[in-house]
């Protein structure tokens, strides 16, 4: 295959060495899409680890993994979930009848219901931005540049070079979904995430009246 016609394989690499847990990514996503309150396409998990006085905390940004073997796509009976040529997994809103099979199938809790649109929604890898040659909103917003987005199959891309020179892994590898969101995770933080998915537990708050 010549270089001109080679298919791109878009992915994201998140270096947990330099993520400061600031949430700029998750707020940028909210702003870009006006994501309703209570649901998330992207967030940052905090995990406390270790015992006093040697405790620490890990910061792990999470989003849709745009899996090579996407359970959501396989589960969708209406064909609303499609894989674009560049590999991004997106939901065609018009074809979604909100049967929620995709939400049940996704091991990452990355899909939510948008009540206004009456459709399932999730991260699109900012297809509208990358089509214009720009970075996804979360990548652009990251102050420490801990997220790299690009073509995993282009050996000259920054993402491929960094993925090639560091040990990388993905979240819940045992699910066999072959995520395209990769992590440099020197402290083994991914395996410590107890909260299951991208959606945050909105019931977890302590009530304030006795």
């Amino acid at each position, binding site marked *: 295959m010549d270089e001109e016609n080679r298919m791109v394989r878009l992915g994201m690499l998140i270096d947990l060495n330099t993520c400061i847990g*600031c949430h700029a990514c998750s707020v940028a996503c909210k*702003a870009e899409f006006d994501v309703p309150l209570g649901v998330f396409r992207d967030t940052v998990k905090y995990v406390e680890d270790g015992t006093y006085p040697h*405790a620490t905390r890990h*910061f792990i940004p999470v989003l849709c993994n745009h899996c090579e073997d996407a359970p959501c796509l396989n589960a969708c009976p209406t064909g609303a979930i499609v894989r674009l040529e560049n590999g991004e997994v997106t939901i065609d809103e018009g074809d979604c009848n909100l049967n929620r099979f995709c939400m049940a199938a996704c091991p990452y809790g990355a899909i939510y219901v948008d009540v206004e649109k009456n459709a399932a929604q999730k991260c699109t890898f900012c297809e509208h931005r990358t089509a214009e040659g720009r970075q996804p909103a979360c990548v652009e917003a990251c102050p*420490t540049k801990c997220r790299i987005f690009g073509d995993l199959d282009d050996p000259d891309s920054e993402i491929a070079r960094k993925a090639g020179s560091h040990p990388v892994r993905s979240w819940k590898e045992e699910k066999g979904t072959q995520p395209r969101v990769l992590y440099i995770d020197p402290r083994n933080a991914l395996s410590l995430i107890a909260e299951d998915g991208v959606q945050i537990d909105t019931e977890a708050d302590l009530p304030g009246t006795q």
Partner: protein
Amino acid sequence: GPRFTPGKTTGAVTRVPSMCQMCTTACGIIANVREGRLLTIEGNPEDPNSRGSICAKGVAGPSVLYDPYRLLYPLKRVGRRGEGRWRRISWEEAYDEIADRLRAIRESGHPEEFALQQGRNRSKDIVRRFLNAYGTPSHFTHRALCSLNRRAAILTTIGESDWDLGDFENSRYILNFGCNWAEAHQGHIPVATRMMRAREHNNAKIVTLESRLSNTAALSDEWFCVKPGTDGLIALAMSNVICAEGLWDKEWFDTWCNYPADKYAEHVRSYTPERAEAESGMPATAIRRIAREFAAAAPRCTTICNRGSHAHRNGFYNDRAITVLNALVGNMGKAGGWCWHPNAEWDDKQFPEPGPIPPKPTVRSVIADAKDWPLANAWQGREMKVGEIVYLWIKERRQRVSALMTYNCDQAWAWPEANLVRDVLADEELIPFHFCMDVMYSETAHLADIVLPWTTYLERWDIDARPPQGLVDYVGLRQPVVRPLGETKDLREVFPELARRIGGGMERYFPWQTPEEYFEEYFRAVPGGLSHMRAHGAWQDPRKRPHYLPYERRLSDEELAGSEIDEPTGVIYKGTDPKTGERQAIGILINGIARRGFTTPSRKVEVSSTFIAVKGEQADKRIDPLPIYDPIPSHSRPFAADELIMISFKWNVHNAHRTGQSKWLQEIVHSNPAWLNTATAAQLGLSEGDWIEVTSFRPHDPHVPHGDGSELGSLRTRVHLTEGVHPSVIAISHNSGRSHGGPIATNGRDQARIPAYGPASHDAKEQPWWAGALSVPQNDIMPIYPDPVSGQQAYHDTIVRIRKL
């Protein structure tokens, strides 16, 4: 193509550079705007300080601009003050009433009876101009609640600056005493991004000492959980190790410090690592190891410190000890070391304020002078006041306040003993007239007579810059990225109009017709002037170089012409200081060479400061000229099982009251349970989520106002058990506990419709799912507790008792 809704920023978008003001770091931003509506905000790569990076607060700007509970119209109260009943009025009516009140006070010959209370202020030029033109010195700030001790310690030691700027990006070792740069701090993102680059590129090691596992502590290579208020003792113990083991740069110290290294070694001899371990909990072996590592990395090593070390009753000395630790290893002013810059903002010689400039007031303000605290206002032009005593002193009638203006401040929620502040603000005898200018309704606006709707930072103008983390000064522009919403206005329109209406000569200091005209003049020194600034947002003079080794610079023959040398000290004097009238030092003779030196009285690093000792004597207080450890009186006795030290902290997504208005930020953090160490909780029989009552006590301290150890107040909250806090500590964030400001800010508590709001939003997207979540006002039980030498509020020293409910 795919049929899904794309994000907002697809297609043609106008990009407007400006500066953030969600916190005080003032990072460069680019606003993406279409058809007059702000879509999103990103970092401006042309800003040399933030270099294209911003944090979650900066990205969340649109949620504050379009907050449905924003103040859009002026209000006048009907009924009693604090009753919450309002009438929408015109600007004309507001101007008339305010101008009439202020004119009467000014004409009475007591202009000091008009006071302005500000929080963070990035429009200093216009605020100063208005107050000076009016003639009032009653300008109350929040600095003593913020960074006073650190600034005072640095000014004492090096003179030239009150702000250290570690050269982190070029550093190999960063020793952090209680600075939470990953979440807050005045240099937040500019510092954090440089720290991460140092880690990536120099394999820099970051060590943090802090009483709570902040995100900064979590990001560090090592975290030591220390007892609050012991940072200075640890710095002295590390100094002890460095001296005892000869790890110092003795030649540098003896050349550039005003105190011999051998004598300093003697001074720190009693501060042994074992003594520091006993008080702080940091193991002596670790103190020795870290001291050795720090010294071995010199000169490419630096400390950083902030509220964890200095917002204490003994914080001035803590930061003195930390600062001098740098002098011991000779890293001062060196690449990768402990650096600073003389310009805290833009270069005001290059960019002078447009005239005519009003003179400073001639009358005095007892409250602003705060003479009980000798270092608060010791440095001319760098007066820091003592913010936490303002309302106590108004209550005690130390100074009459006939009219109070509150500007970008929520003192009724954010101040220590906020309930006292509320009582004073509610008292029409103590404060006969109060007008409040803010973006949103607050606890303080609730206690005003007139509320003025302020523009957000996205709708107004400023010249701005911060201490340059890259060690080269720069200048930035804040400009409107959209037209002001509703009837909101900025000070740059309101103050000139008030000046014209008050009259009496004030008006002549406001000759320009528009902010553009004023800023055309202000930015004249930029090639391309204001248009360049509007297109790029920031400018840095390409001829300027990083401020390394400023003290070594040789004085030129021209500088030396007409100078005289003081033989015993080597200090070179020339002419007289226009401010003090005393002879002016310009340099120092070092090994026969005339060099610039440090800008202290001795022209050296003042390890020992006569200046502060004399300031102390003038106020009948003893201030030690050397860095010492001054134990916190109430912490020195044994604690009962239910007694803890209450500390406060800030979350990365919050700043002050204004971030509470952001639905996106509040959605991430909207609650503040008390953090308790798991072992402490087990001893007290507490489990996750249990309710407790926290009762605070004033310090038992004769040097503190009302320091009688008496009970102050209680709050009820729930506990969060963690391995990430010191066993003697209870940590509560002060970002929560709002009771006014609409449902987003108050977790649904405040449902009042204020007539200053725009049309009600029935959009489900604007309703907080976190309504009813725990949110308690910590400041209500935080005693007014100034450091006796400086006036800095001690935020982390309060003794509390806790009781399971």
